[in-house]
């Protein structure tokens, strides 16, 4: 039978997928483990809904940066876009009304473009660049907001419940996810980005305009983040924070790494990130229900993350990583 365009039988396809995506096994293991240990709290519709909520948060933050990780760079600006965008939204609401939500995709696009151009032309490592941008945006947001979170209530309809027990935000996230996966796997841009991540020099020699596509990668990252924030803003409470908390930054990155997109780039992608996000959501919820102490949960998840990296980089022995 034909699966994903290949003529193969279904069982080998499943085995092949498991081999290349070992995280699925971990996911299933977690689900089984929690179902057995704490069925009363884990196997409830409320928990199911909570897991999906976490999934949406991780995914919509992580989809954009995944594109950048594929080319071998890092984009840490997403929290900054959230914070600054939230304040700008509050400021623009009286002037532009409901249209103000467009500030998110526009800000995301502009930020991504700016980062891309600076990274490529000034040759600044993306890690430092986006981190600094994050800090700057956070500071700007705090300054413009006067140091206090500014809620915006007009968008509550975005997350109003449609289907019982199913977070509406999850429904909104589906087209965004599909768009991201489609772009990376079925278009020329995607192929070129993977090529650049795999061997930047070789990609240039093959005639790809590396600079142009790197800038494009950062721009798309910002754009996807911006679009995702249209949903995410309300999903996370309708009011962006003015204090920079490391936690917001780390978990989406964890989803990317856990999902199996290597930090050196060249493979992986959004389809892996959603797997990572789901696993992380399940693990977080389950551990929290079991232990109820957020700090211990964070500790365990941190260990899980480091373990995933160690296992993932086994194949990169000999590469000097600092």
């Amino acid at each position, binding site marked *: 039978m034909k699966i994903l*365009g*290949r003529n193969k039988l279904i069982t080998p396809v499943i085995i092949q997928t498991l081999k290349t995506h070992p995280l699925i096994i971990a996911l299933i293991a977690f689900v089984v483990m929690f179902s057995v240990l704490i069925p009363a709290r884990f196997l409830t519709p409320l928990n199911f809904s909570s897991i999906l909520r976490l999934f949406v948060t991780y995914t919509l933050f992580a989809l954009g940066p995944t594109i950048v990780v594929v080319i071998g760079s890092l984009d840490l600006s997403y929290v900054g876009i959230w914070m600054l965008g939230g304040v700008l939204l509050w400021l623009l609401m009286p002037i532009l009304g409901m249209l103000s939500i467009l500030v998110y995709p526009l800000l995301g696009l502009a930020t991504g473009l700016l980062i891309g151009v600076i990274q490529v032309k000034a040759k600044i490592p993306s890690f430092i660049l986006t981190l600094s941008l994050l800090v700057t945006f956070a500071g700007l947001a705090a300054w413009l907001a006067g140091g206090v979170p500014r809620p915006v209530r007009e968008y509550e309809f975005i997350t109003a419940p449609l289907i019982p027990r199913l977070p509406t935000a999850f429904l909104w996230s589906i087209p965004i996810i599909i768009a991201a996966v489609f772009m990376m796997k*079925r*278009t*020329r841009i995607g*192929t070129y980005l*993977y*090529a650049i*991540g*795999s*061997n930047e*020099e*070789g*990609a240039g*020699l*093959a*005639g*790809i305009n590396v600079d142009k596509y790197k800038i494009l990668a950062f721009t798309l990252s910002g754009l996807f983040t911006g679009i995702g924030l249209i949903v995410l803003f309300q999903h996370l409470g309708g009011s962006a924070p003015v204090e920079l908390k490391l936690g917001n930054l780390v978990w989406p990155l964890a989803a990317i790494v856990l999902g199996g997109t290597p930090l050196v780039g*060249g*493979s992986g992608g959004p389809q892996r990130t959603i797997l990572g996000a789901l696993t992380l959501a399940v693990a977080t919820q389950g551990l929290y229900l079991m232990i109820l102490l957020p700090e211990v949960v964070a500790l365990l998840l941190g260990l899980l993350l480091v373990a995933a990296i160690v296992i993932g980089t086994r194949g990169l022995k000999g590469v000097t990583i600092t």
Partner: protein
Amino acid sequence: MVTPMDASLLEVKGVSKTFDGVVRALDDVSIAVRQNEIVGVVGENGAGKSTLMKILVGVYSPDKGELYYRGGKVPFPKNPKEAAERGISIVYQEKGVIPSLEVYQFLLLGHEDKYVKFSRLQIDKMKKHAREILEELHVKCDVENFMYELPLSTQKMVEIARAILSVRLEHGDEDITSIIILDEPTAPLTIEGRRELFSDILDMKKNASFIFVSHIIPEVMEFTDRVHVLRDGKLVANYDLSKEKITEEDLFRAIVGRESSEYIYKPEDKRVVSEEVVLTVKNLTKNGCYYDISFDLHKGECIGIFGPAGSGKSEIIKTIAGLISFEGGNLIIRGQKVKADELPHFRLGRGIGYFSGEIGKELFLNWPITKNISIVNMEKILRKPIPVISFNTERKMAERIVKRLRIRAPSVNTDCYSLSGGSKQKVSVGKWLERNPDILLLEDPTIGIDVGAREDIYETALEMKKSGISMVLVSDDPKEYSMLCDKIMFIKDGRIQKVLSPEEFGEVMAA
């Protein structure tokens, strides 16, 4: 009227290229490629081969020169795409492959615009075309494999297929004869891989012409129809191997440009070699690189491992240095067996120093001369009783070395970045001179250095030898072997073929 067989497919005339107004990479070079032939372009490192190829393929533009295609004058291509339209494409020596892409993706990379429908790639169509060309060119692999999954020789074949395909897709005419430039294609391959590659290329000759860039003489002799020899940016010879009787040594002489008399062994000093064995190599084997290598190194002796590129000589010396692990056999350093995967820093403790001509690998370029010399001589510059660094001692040590080796530098505190190539090498040699290891491994010690610095380094090496330091030499320059070695092992295809004395070596080279 020129008959079709003699007609040139592609001809460059009088190409010159200078970089930064100083480095003259090419000086009035002309080469021609005919239909369905393999043309060799050979020369030493830095002779200009790469630059010429990059001009043909649009990466560089020449300062002077003309390009003719099928007899008619055409402009030089401005980028690889234009070159492909013209029928020329290149397979690079390294970094040409994109490992994480699937075969069909890599094959068609850059040509996706022909498979795009509403911004969606027609993957089935791409795979179909990919399968077709691979079949046509007898490349055995699955288009859905990832490039990194293929063996290296198959990867090279896919690269060649890609080059041919590029020309066809850009030119739009299936009938065009592609001109494929192969830049040192056999460098990453094993001996078996090379055989396969060449038989496949010969198969492809009916579909394309090839420019084979190399410095491996035996391969060039065997597979090319005509050979152009470049030296220092100039064309010095043009042989037709089907018509003229040319030997390997003829070619060698044209490439290196030295008089044969220079290879005759001249006994400079009495060579003092003691009975004591410092290094024993026994049946050393690494699959794909070298097999069954055995020799003993005595104190004060210098053994040379000579052979064409890819013969395994580089891997052997790197194995002794600890940079590569071996699979079979034994390595015994001063009576102690060494583990196959021991890390390099342990070798220093065993008395082995490794010096490579690849500048920058072991030199700390942003450090001054003083620090570069002292880093392997830390114990010598520490004060007593508290082991802290004495800058005074460090400086004096560096000054001694600079004087002895006649290093051209404003002061010992100059950063190595600003030194000339020869001076950098001398700093590297100097630190080993000071260190006085038992065994010094030299790989390409004088590559790219001016004559004066070269002589200084030879002098130093001989001094070190006299003082009892044993050495192993790997190089591309026969003169070095004659000058420094007591024994020269000739290696081919990973195995020792014969062991020569310097006199015998000189005779072989001069013949």
